[in-house]
C-alpha cells in the first residue's frame, strides 16, 4: 500500500508499505526512534502500534529540540 509521509520541517514523500503495517513499522524503515517523535495520521495523534491504511497521510514531528 502507498502512504504519504511528511517529516515536519522537511520534505514529503510517498512510501510503499505491506498491507496492515503499523506506524512503528514505518518509523523502523525510516530509522526514526519512536521516542523522539510524535506522529499524526490524517491529522490525529496516534500510538505507534496503530495500523496504517492505503492513502493515509502521516506527519512525523521530531520533538527533540534542545535549549
Amino acid at each position: 500500500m502507498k502512504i504519504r509521509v511528511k517529516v515536519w520541517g522537511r520534505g514529503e514523500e510517498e512510501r510503499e508499505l505491506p498491507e496492515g503495517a503499523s506506524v512503528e513499522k514505518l518509523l523502523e524503515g525510516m530509522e526514526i526512534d519512536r521516542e523522539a517523535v510524535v506522529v499524526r495520521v490524517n491529522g490525529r495523534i496516534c500510538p505507534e502500534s496503530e495500523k496504517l491504511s492505503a492513502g493515509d497521510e502521516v506527519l512525523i514531528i521530531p520533538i527533540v529540540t534542545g535549549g
Partner: protein
Amino acid sequence: MECSFCGRRAVYERRYAGVLLCDRHLIKSVEHRFRLAVSKHELIKRGERVTVAVSGGKDSLSLLYLLADREDAWGFELSALTVDEGIDGYRERSVEKTRRAVAELGVEWKLLSFKERFGRTLDEMLRGNPRLGPCTYCGVLRRRLLNEGAKELGADKLATAHNLDDEVQAIFLDYIRGDLQRLCRLGPKYEPREGFVPRIKPLREIPEKEMALYAMLRRVDFYLGSCPHRRGMHAEIERFLNRLETHHPNSKLMILKFFDRIRPKLTELLPQDFNLQSCKLCGEPAAGEICRSCHLLADLGITTA
C-alpha cells in the same frame, strides 16, 4: 485503538506500563505526576515566590501553565524569566511565544539577554572560534543570568522544566566527564547554597515524549525549532537513550531511579570543606576567587568587573 481507562480513541501507548491513553487521560496523568513530584519532594511552600525559567519550548511553556493552574490552590506567587542568548533565527521566535503566554496568563515576566548583560550575543561570541564548545558558553552564562534574574524577581525558588530525558542525558554526560560535583547536584531540587536561588525540577520524572504530547494536546502554543548549535556528545547520548528506550521500554526511568538511590552515597565522596565565595569580578557565587562564567567571559575577551 482505545484508551485502557475510558475506551476513547487512544493517542499514546505507554509501553512501560502496558496501557493506552486517550488525550484526556494523558493530560490527567502528566498533571498528576507534576503535582505528585511537587508534594513528594516538597518543592513549593505556601507563601513562596516561584520563578519559572521559560524558553518558549514545549516543556517550559507547559510548566508555566501547570504552575499557573496551581498558583491559587498552593498559595504561591508565580513569575517567569527568559534568557535570550542571541541565537539568530531561533531564540527570537521562542521569546515571542513566551511573550504571548505570560500576557495571556497575566504573569510577571523578566527578559534578560546576553547582549544587554555581556555586551555580545552568543552568535557574536562564537564568531571568534572560542576554545570550548557553544553549549559550554551558552549553558554557563545562561545559568548565571537565570540566577541573577531570579534574585532580581525576589524568587525563593527557580523552577526549570528539565524532563526525564534531560536528567538521564545529564547523568551520562557528567559520568563520562567525571564531574562528580555536577552529578551529585542532579536531584529534584538543589540543596540551598549561599548566593543561589534554589532550583526545582517538577517534570524530572516525565518522559520528553509525554511532555510533547501534553503540550500538543493542551494546545500550548510553543516553538518547535532546533537550536542550530546543538551537536556533539550531548546529541549522541540523546540518540543512544532514545534507541535504548525504543528497544527496552522504561530504561530511562530505571536509570534515574537507580541514580537517585546511589546519589546520597556519591555525595559523601565530595570534599566536605568545599565553600563557595563571592566572585571578585561579578559577586556571584564562585568555587574559587573567580566564578566559571567570568572565566569564560575572560576567554572571550569580555570583562564584567
